[in-house]
């Protein structure tokens, strides 16, 4: 049977989930160092418990460990985001567009920093990592409805911030 103690299975789980764990903690606290440590902590713990945790449970296991690591411990810093490098055939290189996009991005980043931690995390996991509401609900240990609520409120406050209301 598949076993997390199997090096290949473990590596595969790591490749599938480590980036999201990293982003998850980063969106929460805006601290890159802590996010890297959280990945290490979560996956080292997964290894230590590999006999007990099935591959199906591994995902929620690493999120839970990462999440509990900094519970009420660190103060959130500003989350800094970058532009994803333009891929392939998109050629929207005209300076006006780029400038406008940059300005908008700055506004968005500023507005994101003002969001409550749980709304920001939910919003970014969905937008950047493409996580479904149900997946985020599982990570956060709340209902899908609660995630929809966070998403709705996040969009609403971001819009109000950016439009200067």
């Amino acid at each position, binding site marked *: 049977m598949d076993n997390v103690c199997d090096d290949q299975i473990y*590596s595969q789980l*790591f*490749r599938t989930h*480590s*980036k999201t764990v*990293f*982003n998850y903690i*980063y*969106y929460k606290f805006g601290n*890159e*160092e802590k*996010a*890297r*440590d*959280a*990945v*290490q*902590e979560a*996956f*080292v713990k997964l*290894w230590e418990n590999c006999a007990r945790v099935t591959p199906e449970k591994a995902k929620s296991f690493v999120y839970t460990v990462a999440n509990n690591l900094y519970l009420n411990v660190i103060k959130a810093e500003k*989350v*800094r*985001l*970058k*532009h*994803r490098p333009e891929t392939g055939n998109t050629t929207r290189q005209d300076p006006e567009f780029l400038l406008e*996009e940059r300005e*908008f*991005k700055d506004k*968005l980043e500023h507005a994101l920093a003002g969001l409550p931690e749980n709304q920001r995390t939910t*919003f*970014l996991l*969905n*937008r*950047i990592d493409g996580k479904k*509401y149900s997946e985020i609900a599982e990570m956060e240990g709340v209902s899908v*409805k609660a*995630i*929809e*609520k966070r*998403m*709705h409120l996040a*969009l*609403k406050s*971001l*819009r109000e911030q*950016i*439009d200067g209301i």
Partner: protein
Amino acid sequence: MKENYLAKWLNGDLSDEELKVFRESPEYKTYRKIAEVSTRLQGPEFDVEQALEQAKEGRRPSVGKVVALKAYRQLWKVAAAVVVLLGIGYFYVNSLETSIQAGLAQRSEVVLPDASEVILNAGSEVSYRDKSWENRRLVSLKGEAFFKVAKGQTFTVETDAGKVTVLGTQFNVLQRGDIFSVTCFEGRVRVDHQGTSLELAAGQGYQVAGGSFKTFEVAAGARPSWMEDESSFRSLPLSFILEELERQHSIRVETRGVDTGVLFTGTFSNTNLDLALKSISAPLQLGYTREGDKVLLYAQDTP
């Protein structure tokens, strides 16, 4: 607009009708821009393969980078000392034993960290490390207890005579003096005793007394008799029966002219002392007198 319609819009869950209304709202343009631009963002670089290497080395996460700032040198020392002290404190707290006793004529109920239940018979004690339970699932037992293990959990019960490893859900362990008895009521347990190891299925029991061992069977669905306010014995020396009587009724028992090595099979009441004394004395043809919390058992034919 329906509840959380913004979230539903992003997820493509709005009906055509709703979408039309939303698109005509003045806020729509900004919402669309937010949705678009946000997908073109990314967090800091994360090298998956490098992180995997690091995780495989099993290195603990660093406690922050060490920066050689002179002004902060002292602070680092203090911080290091605090970390060391916290570490010591942590291990100290982790090594603390939680101990629960049931006094004479008493019973105690204990809930272990994994929600398993332990019911202690009179004059018994269990101890375990509460804080480090996850790493050290070990319960030490002196005396007798019934274990009702939470589903899917495992631990080991350690006694002076042997170890019982939980593979199942309900079992009784007794270890007093040279008597060691394990009864499995549900599921399976493994017993390790003086180099031998055997597994007991539900309804099976294992008993060692005076150096010899035997297995026995109990009725399916039964519970240890002491939990039904009775004490039952199979071929155990009278001396042990009398000790149990002392524990259950908080009395002192003395004997005169009685062979306490004789084996006794039977049951006595844990709530009614007179009844209990009759149950013991009648089959062995003994007489008894009772004075407060002192009981004297004597052979009938001795004057």
